[in-house]
């Protein structure tokens, strides 16, 4: 009796060992099939690009609460994607209550916080999302941060404003996540010397001549400028970009055939990005709510090129009549698409090249529109292009729609149909069959 028991023990141990090896093998070479419609468990190409460029090891330390299992699981699942995609990323997870020493050393006092470290640099992530973690990795192991000033005081979109239609606080946060240190700048007469990027986002009132001169001089001295100009933009702004060889058409781009459900048909869709300027340009498909086209004109010094074009279904209403009347193309008067809606200018200077990007719309960066289609990608890609020599252009993780109300609405009748169809009828049918069989058995 003893020998068979030993033999059985050995067999069980051998099978357990073989199965453990299989599990270990699967752990070492994981494969994932992401069936979520928003590709929630797949890192965006932008993040993968950042991870691919990592030269140093990055350590991510997560502090969680052991009493909040689902939250911990969501965070560790996300961080596991990083370590799976890049072996240089090392992830550790600690229960905050059980590891106060490590938490204190890293300056963490709240649950669900991650600390991203590379060498001596360290960033804390308070909300563990792909956008935030990638931003932190970029901050500690990527390129140095770019100090970015949003000029305000002329009706521009303010990065401190949380207002839905006019504010640009979401844009500021999106830029911050990619290493742009965003601040507001009251007036442009004196651009701080540490400015890595100046953004003029939809001014509605004229800039003073001194401000225009200061911005132009900054670019000539190697500065970087991003101009977002709506149709009807003030003359001073038109004059400013004219100095760089870009003439704003002051028309209105109409894209009725390409219009989205729920929009009024005036929104211009960015169909193409200039691949000569942005290698591996992502399909941004931005939606510019009210855009004007532009053209390049001769200017001494600057070297300009078109950056973004609309689809060929669009056209330009040169008199900007469309908001009041039904949009109708007038042959010989209006202009057919595709239309240029963004331009990139390189301005040679003694202290390095200045760079300017002009986009014929500013509303796409408002809190209301930033997460629509590829608007955020367009903003971040152009900001990278103008501010950094080594632009990083790839599709970013999609913004999460907010709110608690579901996109699904059910009428009381729908709910009744589901209740009867899914709960009552199938189970009652089977239970009835069971009852019949039981009765038949009893009588048999």
């Amino acid at each position, binding site marked *: 009796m003893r020998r068979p028991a030993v033999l059985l023990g050995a067999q069980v141990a051998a099978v357990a060992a073989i199965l453990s090896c299989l599990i270990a093998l*699967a752990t070492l070479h994981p494969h994932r099939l992401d069936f979520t419609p928003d590709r929630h468990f797949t890192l965006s190409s932008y993040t993968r690009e950042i991870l691919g460029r990592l030269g140093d090891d990055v350590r991510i330390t997560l502090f969680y609460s052991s009493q909040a299992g689902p939250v911990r699981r969501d965070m560790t699942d996300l961080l596991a994607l990083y370590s799976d995609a890049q072996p240089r990323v090392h992830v550790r997870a600690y229960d905050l209550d059980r590891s106060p020493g490590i938490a204190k050393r890293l300056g963490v006092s709240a649950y669900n916080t991650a600390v991203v470290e590379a060498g001596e640099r360290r960033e804390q992530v308070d909300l563990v999302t792909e956008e935030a973690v990638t931003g932190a990795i970029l901050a500690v192991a990527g390129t140095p941060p770019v100090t970015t000033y949003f000029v305000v005081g002329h009706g521009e979109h303010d990065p401190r404003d949380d207002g839905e239609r006019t504010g640009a606080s979401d844009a500021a946060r999106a830029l911050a996540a990619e290493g742009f240190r965003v601040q507001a700048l009251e007036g442009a007469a004196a651009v701080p010397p540490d400015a890595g990027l100046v953004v003029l986002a939809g001014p509605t009132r004229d800039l003073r001549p001194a401000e225009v001169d200061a911005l132009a001089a900054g670019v000539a001295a190697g500065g970087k400028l991003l101009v977002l100009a709506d149709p009807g933009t003030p003359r001073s702004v038109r004059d400013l970009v004219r100095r760089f060889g870009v003439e704003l058409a002051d028309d209105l781009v109409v894209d009725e055939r390409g219009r989205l459900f729920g929009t009024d048909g005036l929104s211009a869709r960015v169909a193409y990005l200039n691949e000569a300027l942005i290698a591996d340009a992502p399909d941004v498909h931005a939606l510019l709510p009210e855009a004007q086209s532009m053209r390049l004109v001769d200017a001494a010094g600057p070297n300009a090129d078109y950056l973004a074009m609309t689809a060929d279904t669009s056209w330009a209403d040169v008199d900007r009549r469309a908001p009041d009347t039904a949009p109708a193309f007038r042959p010989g008067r209006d202009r057919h698409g595709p239309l240029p809606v963004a331009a990139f200018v390189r301005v040679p200077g003694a202290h390095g090249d200045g760079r300017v990007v002009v986009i014929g719309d500013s509303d796409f960066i408002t809190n209301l529109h930033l997460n629509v289609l590829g608007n955020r990608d367009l903003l971040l890609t152009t900001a990278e292009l103008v501010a950094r020599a080594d632009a990083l252009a790839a599709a970013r993780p999609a913004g999460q729609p907010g709110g608690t109300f*579901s996109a699904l*609405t059910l009428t009381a009748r729908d709910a009744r149909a589901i209740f009867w169809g899914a709960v009552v009828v199938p189970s009652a049918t089977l239970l009835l069959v069971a009852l019949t069989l039981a009765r038949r058995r009893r009588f048999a």
Partner: protein
Amino acid sequence: MTKAVLVCRRELTAMCGGPLAWVLGGVFLLLTGYFFYSDLALFVLVGGANQTRGLWRFVFLDFRLVALLVLPLVTMRLFAEERKLGTLELLWTYPVRDGELLAGKFLAALVLYTVFLAATVIGPCILYRLHPFAVTPLVAGYAGMALLGVAFIACGTAASTITENQVVAALLTYAVLVFSWFATWNEAAIGERLAPALLQLSLFDHFYGFAQGVIDSRDVVYLLAFAAFFLFLALRSLGARSWRGI
């Protein structure tokens, strides 16, 4: 293989000839239907915009509990009843090997579970007719439910081979499955060093990804390995009669 199919057919006929399988099916559909309906109601009220994380995740996590409740009752009779009635000894006199016997009974329970599970798509189908949605997360969720079922049935089959009492077989299955869930229920109660290992072994942690719409090879391999291990134990348990000279 043909013999396994014959055993499977015999087992299915026996199961469906009595009221137990129908009662279990009715309870399974009642509970899964109710969970689907209540999760849907919650999602409509406060679930947010993400249907995968706001609805399907909870639906499949609840379906998992129903499978945990019902499947041990399906598997408890597979061998225990035969042993109690003395028909197992009769079966051993037939030219059927233990592996074929085990495969046939395992397949029968799996077929029954698959039918139960397939019937639960009625709710999502009605919802789809009313409000079309992306069905791909359901593919992952149902794949996870199928694999979880394979693991549960393997565990239950193994438990059924070691006793002639059906209640004991069901309780043993509950014990293993519930332990594999509750072992990581309260991480604060287990050691810092033990927690990661237990998390790796938790059957339910390996199901979580499926519920969220993702199929991970690690989870698939773990669930299949879990099932393979218990089927091996069941096979050894059946083979133990040779030690006893039966």
